[in-house]
């Protein structure tokens, strides 16, 4: 027990009390008479007894009180036959063996407790109690009573009855004490405190009402409460502006690499009635912040004010936008119907998806979007449904938005040279565990085409070129057997925090990645693995060149000081031990595609076996073709450049997977 604590105190008090009780009882027995000191003795006659827990409750009539303690109030009470509730502990009750009509003397120290809403006082601490036998007959009666057991009613106490310690006037909760940990703010709509300073009216919840009532002029006074379903970036195109600027053409013009990426942060929002709107916010100077916006804003509620309507677009004119809207339909919560009260029984599956959507923008110079970042995710939010690639490939129809988490194996840039690098289409080859572990009929790797209109952050671009990364593709488009990343598709490096993982496996791939083997179904612009035998060598394509052993730079120069040495201008150092790279086209006979001529451009660094061959070929200048022919070439990973049927030829290039 704690030194000086309450428990220790009570222990001491209790021990003292127990000694006093046993001493008093002993005294009663040994003296066989009631103690002489009558002051403060309570004399009661028992009217009724019942039990509650182990306490015996006796409804008693107070007979008289010792003159010493008599007070004016007591005198009044006495005259009206005062009723008392006397409590006895189990032990005292067993000792007393009281019955109705018994008279009990209760010696001090007893306690009187007055209850709040009851008139009858309660007497406690009745350890020093003694039954008084009034007559000879009583004694005899007592003995017979002692033989028969009296049934005492036991009240069962309800557990629902809790104790209210504070007064009705007090607040329900105590003041926060010093050891209180950080308090979380309430989550319900407290829009009153967060209203935009300009907006004085109540927050509305219908986008359509706002649009129709205010017109295209723009509104400042009213706020609309919506949920942010998606956050993405769109390339800023002239076509989205509401007016032309001088002689600038309306079509998209490629932006040179030196300018900051011209992208606008956009939100796809939905109101309580199910209507969508795309809100174009400010231009982002860099896409680095984008992932932050995405994580902090997506799924939260926000208030829009002072929006300007850019256009009202329809399904036919904005296929990309509506494919995203379709993926969010039907809504998770039945949308409200204007004029009707909320009916939770309403079926949402039969509601047709929206056929129009307003594109809004902010008035220049002011931000009119207040996002409740601290609040919880709105229950209207529909996170992206993440599926395994195998499931996605099986989906029917086209222009369906899909989300998946996959490992990027190989990246290939489009080869148009007049287009800057960040404007070029990228071809990614990805896989996940649903494809890798499957049997025949399902490709092991799938190609994802990233168009220039899909805005990639600098972080993603670097990650894609650096190494094999797991990437989350949010709202990519699937159709006609291809997955493409277009406008409104977002590539993220972080695993989705909130998503409907419908059977998707977000775990890492275990074991080495395998590609499909080259066969009759292999198509151009895909990746595959092959094995075969060398049947021919295209000598005219053979060449070798030195590369920097530090950075791999293939464009080494002759050192100005010493023309015998090589210099790497990327490392700004002399290359003393260059790595020799060789390239050669070989013709293989592949049993998996035996009818075709397979021409593979191979690199020395990967195929060690071929390096030996090539060295022999190139340095000795004389060779026997026979020594090369017939050599087995192991499983090579290749990119398929072209597949032609007449002549039946497959041209590939050996690749390194990321």
């Amino acid at each position: 027990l704690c030194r000086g604590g309450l428990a220790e105190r009570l222990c001491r008090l209790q021990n003292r009390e127990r000694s006093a009780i046993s001493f008093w009882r002993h005294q009663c027995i040994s003296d066989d008479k009631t103690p002489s000191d009558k002051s403060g003795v309570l004399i009661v006659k028992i009217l009724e007894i019942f039990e509650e827990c182990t306490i015996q409750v006796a409804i008693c009539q107070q007979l008289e009180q010792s003159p010493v303690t008599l007070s004016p109030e007591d005198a009044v009470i006495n005259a009206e036959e005062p009723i008392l509730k006397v409590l006895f502990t189990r032990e005292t009750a067993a000792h007393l063996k009281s019955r109705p009509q018994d008279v009990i003397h209760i010696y001090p120290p007893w306690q009187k407790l007055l209850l709040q809403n009851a008139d009858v006082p309660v007497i406690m601490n009745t350890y020093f109690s003694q039954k008084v036998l009034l007559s000879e007959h009583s004694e005899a009666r007592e003995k017979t009573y002692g033989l028969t057991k009296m049934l005492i009613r036991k009240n069962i106490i309800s557990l629902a009855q809790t104790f209210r310690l504070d007064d009705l006037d007090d607040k329900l909760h105590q003041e926060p004490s010093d050891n209180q940990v950080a308090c979380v703010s309430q989550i319900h709509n407290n829009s009153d405190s967060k209203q935009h300073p300009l907006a004085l009216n109540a927050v509305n919840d219908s986008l359509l009402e706002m649009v129709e009532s205010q017109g295209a002029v723009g509104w400042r006074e009213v706020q609309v409460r919506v949920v942010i379903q998606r956050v993405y970036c769109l390339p800023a195109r002239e076509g989205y502006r509401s007016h032309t600027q001088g002689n600038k053409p309306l079509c998209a013009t490629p932006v040179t690499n030196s300018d900051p990426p011209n992208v606008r942060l956009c939100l796809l929002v939905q109101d309580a009635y199910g209507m969508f709107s795309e809100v174009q916010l400010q231009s982002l100077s860099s896409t680095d912040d984008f992932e932050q916006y995405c994580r902090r804003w997506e799924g939260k509620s926000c208030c829009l004010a002072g929006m300007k309507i850019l256009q009202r677009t329809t399904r036919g004119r904005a296929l990309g936008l509506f494919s995203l809207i379709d993926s969010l339909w039907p809504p998770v919560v039945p949308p409200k119907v204007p004029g009707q009260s909320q009916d939770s029984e309403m079926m949402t599956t039969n509601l047709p998806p929206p056929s129009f959507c307003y594109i809004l923008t902010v008035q220049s110079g002011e931000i009119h979007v207040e996002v409740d970042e601290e609040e919880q995710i709105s229950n209207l939010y529909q996170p992206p449904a993440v599926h395994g690639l195998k499931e996605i490939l099986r989906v029917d129809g086209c222009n369906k938005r899909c989300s998946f988490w996959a490992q990027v194996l190989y990246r290939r840039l489009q080869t148009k040279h007049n287009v800057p690098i960040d404007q070029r289409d990228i071809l990614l080859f990805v896989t996940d565990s649903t494809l890798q572990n499957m049997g025949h009929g399902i490709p092991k790797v799938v190609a994802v085409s990233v168009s220039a209109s899909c805005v990639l952050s600098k972080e993603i671009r670097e990650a894609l070129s650096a190494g094999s990364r797991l990437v989350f593709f949010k709202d990519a488009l699937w159709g006609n057997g291809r997955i493409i990343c277009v406008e409104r598709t977002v590539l993220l490096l972080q695993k989705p925090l909130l998503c409907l993982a419908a059977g998707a496996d977000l775990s890492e791939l275990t074991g080495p990645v395998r590609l499909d083997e080259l066969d009759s179904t292999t198509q151009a612009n895909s990746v595959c693995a092959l094995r075969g035998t060398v049947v021919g060598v295209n000598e005219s394509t053979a060449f070798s060149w030195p590369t920097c052993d530090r950075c791999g730079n293939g464009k080494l120069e002759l050192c100005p000081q010493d023309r015998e040495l090589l210099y790497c201008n990327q490392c700004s150092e002399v290359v003393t031990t260059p790595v020799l790279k060789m390239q050669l086209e070989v013709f293989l006979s592949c049993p998996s595609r035996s009818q075709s001529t397979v021409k593979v451009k191979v690199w020395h660094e990967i195929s060690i076996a071929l390096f030996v061959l090539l060295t022999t070929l190139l340095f000795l200048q004389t060779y026997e073709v026979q020594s090369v022919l017939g050599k087995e070439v192991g499983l090579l990973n290749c990119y398929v450049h072209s597949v032609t049927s007449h002549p039946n030829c497959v041209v590939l290039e050996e690749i390194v997977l990321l």
Partner: protein
Amino acid sequence: NSTLPAVAEELLREIRKAFQERSHVPDDLLLGLKFIFGPSAVPALDLVDQRSVTRLRSPSGRTLYQVLGSSGKLYTCYSSCHFCTCPAFGFSVLQKSESLLCKHILAVYLSQAMGACQELSVSEEQLTNILLAEEEDEG
């Protein structure tokens, strides 16, 4: 109509009032605790001395109490009714109806009365998990 709960409540209110006014609980109230709650009184006060009671609150306003027992086990007491996950509650209160409360619930009330509750804010999910965990233990 029951008497004991009203008595217990009044006693606890007196303790609270005495503590608020004088930061001290008089002897007669402590003995009153002993009289009404019997053997639970001293252990309950010990739990209060050790600051073993924590009130958990979730954003929706739901509360729950957790009491660190002498054995090191954490027991959960409900706010809306008298319930505790300790075995003594199941036995003495529910089965035998011998006690109004177990020592943990009494400790909760005493901690409330003397401002000795630790306060902790938790998420809805955490609160739910604590409640569900109790279910699993008993299941």
